């Protein structure tokens, strides 16, 4: 695996993403008004205090979601490689252990009542 592919890959990324941003900066019309950057709350100016402590449940749900979302990122390359004959059994056992560890995490969260909203 020589380095050129890496550099080429990086260059294509920069050109595509950077180009899109720069092009849209010039092509798109833009207008500013005092209300444009205010928070949107169904058309009514926001009132009252938003600086307050949030419920911890939101954080727990986010963590559990993150765990299972990242898990699918690992499963995709695995399922592509699964078709090669050579890796048959070992890849399968490997993913079972991977899932087992995650299910352990889920059961722990379940027992700790992280999933139930009080």
């Amino acid at each position: 695996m020589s380095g050129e592919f890496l550099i080429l890959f990086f260059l294509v990324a920069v050109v595509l993403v950077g180009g899109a941003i720069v092009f849209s900066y010039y092509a798109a019309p833009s207008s500013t008004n005092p209300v444009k950057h205010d928070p949107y709350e169904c058309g009514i100016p926001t009132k009252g205090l938003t600086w307050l402590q949030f419920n911890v449940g939101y954080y727990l749900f986010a963590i559990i979601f993150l765990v299972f979302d990242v898990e699918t990122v690992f499963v995709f390359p695995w399922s592509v490689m699964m078709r090669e004959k050579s890796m048959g059994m070992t890849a399968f056992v490997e993913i079972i252990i991977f899932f087992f560890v995650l299910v352990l995490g889920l059961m722990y969260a379940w027992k700790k009542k992280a999933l139930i909203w009080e």
Partner: protein
Amino acid sequence: MGVKIKSMKYEDFEDNETLELFKQSGGNILFTTLDGIINWGRSNSIWPLTFATSCCGIEMMATGAARHDFARFGIEVYRASPRQADVIVVAGTIVPKMAPVLKRLYDQMPDPKYVIAMGACAVSGGPFVNSYHIVKGVDKIIPVDVYVPGCPPRPEALLYGVMQLQRKIKLESAFNKKKDK
């Protein structure tokens, strides 16, 4: 310099006065192919804001549903927040208590943004024109691009209004801002 709009033949548009007017005014814009591409993209994917105040909202829902499908014209999905909407279809009566809210929604939409005034209430106050609590036409609050008359207008009328808006977008030029915007 006839403006080439592939989907509909130029002659099919009966009311072409906006185009004629635009050309007589010496619209000396350089209509590059880049503009053509941008306008093709913009006009064929206009996402409306879910904004329906009264009866025209039901006809707008019927236009969005299975029979008179909006999505054929690129109006794929109703965005709930103005941050992701391109057009605000004012479907229904606007009253003075709602006027600042509508103005705020319009201001919070990113450019390029358009307004379709749907129904007699949004165009000119409609059947409630001599009431004590009515805004007689939405163009008193926000600039309107297309007026769709009717009370409520039929879904086909709204579709024709959307096609007129698409024609209007196809005339814009992103780079030469010499026109009186």
